[in-house]
């Protein structure tokens, strides 16, 4: 037992040190990050079911991704799974501010103004204030992180994010000793976010993390994906990515980061408390009240895969929840 525990801890430290030492000099050109083969490789199951030789004729050629390229360091921490197609990552989105179906955000989010953008840092923190996005990002080197992304609905992707470690940002603003939680808020602007005109959820969208979760080296604030500036439907210009939690925890288009003593109530928790808890860690053993979480459909694949504990980041994050009843704290 003790040995096991120790093992877990050393691994955790190893990973942490990898993340810390990951500032590899020199940027990587976006063309280098993704093998063209990977994103042109559309839906293997199509060939399996339809067996159509015709299908490739109708596939759209994707010359580039179309957004502004970013300069960033390549992370040494990444999953080895095949990346989900760029097209799927940027067209199949849950972003209720732009409508409740998956394909609306890619169309309706284009009208969102993201420049200028400012983020307010508030609450239990020594350096509160409203900062421009540039000020928020300036001191940090961008880094790529290839993470699994598991939606609570039972589908998943593998996404090459580009962003900064959330913990590095938090340290800059010196949270006080009373800061136990971090609360994030999405922009509220019904004129550009038509989904906010209907009260499907309580707007603005709110999410939260426990301080140690926020400081975990896997938690990032993303500003890009696939080597380019984040598309608006994916939460531009600044979004959270917490890869061991269900996707809805990874709040998009953040305008406020607040440090609190009390545990914040997230939007989904407020809306349907018996189904969505504060933690929302990916856990194949704890079902959603209405569906099983044992398996998931990786976008682009035909057969389902087994869902992994903490979305496959068990080694890294299990220590955060030691001794907690994950059924109770779902």
């Amino acid at each position, binding site marked *: 037992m003790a040995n096991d525990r120790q093992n877990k801890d050393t691994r955790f430290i190893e990973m942490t040190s990898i993340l810390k030492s990951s500032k590899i000099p020199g940027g990587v050109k976006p063309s280098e990050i993704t093998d063209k083969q990977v994103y042109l490789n559309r839906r293997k199951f199509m060939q399996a079911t339809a067996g159509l030789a015709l299908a490739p004729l109708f596939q759209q050629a994707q010359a580039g991704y179309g957004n502004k390229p970013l300069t960033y360091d390549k992370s040494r921490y990444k999953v080895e799974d095949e990346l989900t197609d760029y097209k799927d990552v940027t067209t199949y989105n849950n972003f209720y501010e732009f409508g409740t179906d998956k394909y609306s955000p890619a169309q309706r989010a284009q009208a969102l103004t993201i420049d200028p953008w400012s983020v307010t840092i508030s609450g239990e923190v020594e350096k509160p204030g409203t900062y421009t996005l540039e000020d928020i990002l300036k001191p940090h080197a961008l880094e790529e992180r290839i993470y699994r992304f598991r939606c609570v609905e039972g589908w998943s992707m593998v996404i090459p994010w580009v962003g900064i470690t959330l913990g590095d940002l938090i340290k800059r603003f010196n949270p006080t000793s009373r800061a136990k939680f971090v609360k994030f808020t999405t922009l509220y602007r019904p004129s550009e976010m038509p989904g906010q005109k209907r009260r499907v959820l309580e707007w603005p969208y709110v999410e939260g993390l426990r301080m140690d979760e926020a400081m975990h080296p896997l938690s990032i604030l993303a500003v890009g994906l696939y080597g380019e500036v984040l598309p608006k439907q994916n939460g531009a210009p600044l979004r959270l990515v917490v890869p061991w939690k269900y996707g809805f925890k990874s709040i998009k288009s953040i305008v406020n980061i607040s440090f609190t003593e009390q545990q914040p109530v997230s939007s989904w928790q407020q809306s349907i408390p018996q189904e969505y808890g504060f933690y929302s860690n990916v856990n194949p053993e704890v079902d959603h009240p*209405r569906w099983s979480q044992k398996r998931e459909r990786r976008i682009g694949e035909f057969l389902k895969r087994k869902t992994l504990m903490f979305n496959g980041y068990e080694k890294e994050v299990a220590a955060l929840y030691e001794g907690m009843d994950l059924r109770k704290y779902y």
Partner: protein
Amino acid sequence: MSSRQLVLLKIIVFISCLLPLAWLMYALLLDQLGANPIEVIIRRIGEWGLQLLLITLCMTPLRDVVQQPWPIQIRRMLGLFAFFYVCLHFVSYLWLEQFFDWPEIVRDIIKRPFITVGMLAVLGLLPLAFTSTRKAQRRLGKRWKRLHQLVYPVSVFAVVHFFWLVKADLLKPAIYSLCLLALLGYRIYKHRLTRSG
């Protein structure tokens, strides 16, 4: 309506009921179903089943409005198409959602209310489909009508099934519920009217 017109109408209804499926096949082969085609297949087919069920229930009021027998004459075909799509929906669930993992399917049916009511809807439609022939209608006589009133609870199960699977946006299931309420309400109203009159 002449018998020739009726045949024509039936052909049109038959083809119309197959159009959604044809569209789905076409879109699937051309990779036009988006990032998660299987979800689209299961959801769309299920929704068409529900829509056809409600359309079938429209035929009686429609007959009363147009004062002609043709809505009743195409009702069976519509009902069978509803059954057809519901079956396709059920099979796509068994295959594409569960991959015939029977213990998991049984657990799903027992544990999840929305699957339970969906299953009840499928089971309720079975005797209706099997007794849809004219022969069965004659043999069952008065009992046929009683049996086929099963379509009412089946429709309720189908709408509830949809209601319970939606995550947060209840607009669509609410619309179907209203349609069903109107259709059932019409029958209750008519029943009362004939009783008191």
